[in-house]
């Protein structure tokens, strides 16, 4: 990671969030994987909710997922995201559902279960953040 970027980070809700955001900054998002249950978890946390094991590895995720739902913000709540802003809920191939965003121009093609893949974009506050684009699957 570029050291100059480390000062700019998204809000961390627990100490377990930091390694995830570091992996995002490097363009390869990782989540905690539990060797006992073989489960990935999101958001990051101290233990696997399935096994209660506190052992884990940070493993890269495939970045592939499918659309579970979406909403368009018609009001600007955050300067970083002027309206209209398309927020999506994506179920990752690894299981967890993740909230993210897509370009508003994707709205006309969005539908339930549409395959998407993760890309990394710049947040105006100065950090990298995962976003999604449609995945052209054969």
């Amino acid at each position, binding site marked *: 990671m570029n050291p100059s970027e480390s000062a700019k980070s*998204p*809000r961390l*809700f627990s100490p377990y969030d930091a390694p995830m955001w570091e992996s995002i900054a490097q363009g390869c998002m990782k989540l905690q994987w539990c060797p006992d249950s073989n489960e990935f978890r*999101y*958001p990051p946390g101290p233990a696997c*909710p399935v096994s209660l094991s506190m052992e884990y590895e940070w493993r890269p995720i495939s970045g592939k997922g499918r659309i*579970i*739902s*979406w*909403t*368009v*913000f*018609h*009001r600007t*709540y*955050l300067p*970083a*995201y002027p309206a209209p*802003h398309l*927020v999506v*809920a994506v179920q990752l191939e690894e299981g*967890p*559902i*993740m*909230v*993210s*965003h897509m370009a508003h121009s994707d709205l006309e093609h969005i*539908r*339930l279960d549409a395959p998407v893949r993760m890309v990394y974009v710049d*947040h105006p506050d100065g950090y990298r*953040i995962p*976003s999604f684009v449609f995945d052209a699957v054969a």
Partner: protein
Amino acid sequence: MDSSTSSISAVVGVGHTDWVEDYKRVRSGEKPHDSYGYATQAFNCALRDAGIARDEVDGLIVGPTTAYERMGEILNIDPRWGGQADAIQAVLQAVLAIKSGMAEVIALVYGNDQRSAAVQYGGPEAMGGGAFLSYVYHSAWGLTSQGALYALMYQRYKELNGLDDSTLGQVAVAQRQWASLNPNAIMRKPITMEDYLGSAYIAEPLRLYDYCLINDGGVALIVMEAERARKVAAKSGTKPVYIRGIGRADLNSKATSLGPRLLDFYLPAQNKAAKQVFDAAGLGPKDIDALMVYDSFSPHILFALEGFGYCGVGEAGEFIARNGIGVGGKLPINTGGGHLSESYMQGWNHQVEAVRQARGGLGNRQVPNCRHVQYTSDVAGKAMSVIYGA
């Protein structure tokens, strides 16, 4: 099923602040009271309604927006049992305290100066994250409001069931119809489906009319052990309204990654809470004369109808169209106007309306032969319910 919590307690007094007047005053820049002031006003009204003296109160539950000790200090109540809870949890806890003999006369008081204090439910300073991580965790992507979480939930429901915008519009239109008959309601001007469909999206598919109001106010209830309630009511000439059953089931697993919300619409929790509350009361959905649903956003009503067994999964829109939930409908819902049109008292005003409907005498908004009123809430997957009956 255990029905030992059934009819052991009753609401003997309800009170609230003047939501309409305070809404006007706050909009014109005044600050009539803080949260404690509103709660105190409501408490005084509830005591008068119950016809009891303050010193009879031996239990105190305060809402989440006031500190327990300071509230007790202001009301000068040193109870033998107390706590802090949201509306439905407060009712459930009062029943359990009475059941276990910890208290006999419990004051439930709530005050909230959310509008005059400019409390933010969305945006960078959104509140609620301390209790529910899902309310704030996704802010880096621009999702910050509870309304947007319901928008995500309803969008999926809408797609799965192939619905158009007018399905959800039925809720706001019906509740405004009720509010137009309620002098305590802040928004009383009737709206049509055309008005609804012409209103702006906030977090699409939710429109302005799908959102609750934000206003100042307070609510209080006096819950009493049933035998004592009968005596008190006989003296004051009022009807005690019994708590016939309570139910609760929570979904915490995967709450922040939204699984129970987006994949299950909280139905498993509502199903369990429904079984508990109906079994305890010895009743079913067909016995309920009026339904009160926690409605920070209008989709709550559809999910509650399905979760509590009033109709099948995916059928709520059709159920509403066929039966009617507004004035003259077969299943009156949120007959005071609810959070959308009466007042946003975070579930507390629904208890007052339920009690008043069960007592009877509400004039042109009285539900005829109203014997059983159910209240349900599903805040962040915590499904809870109570059935009131006179």
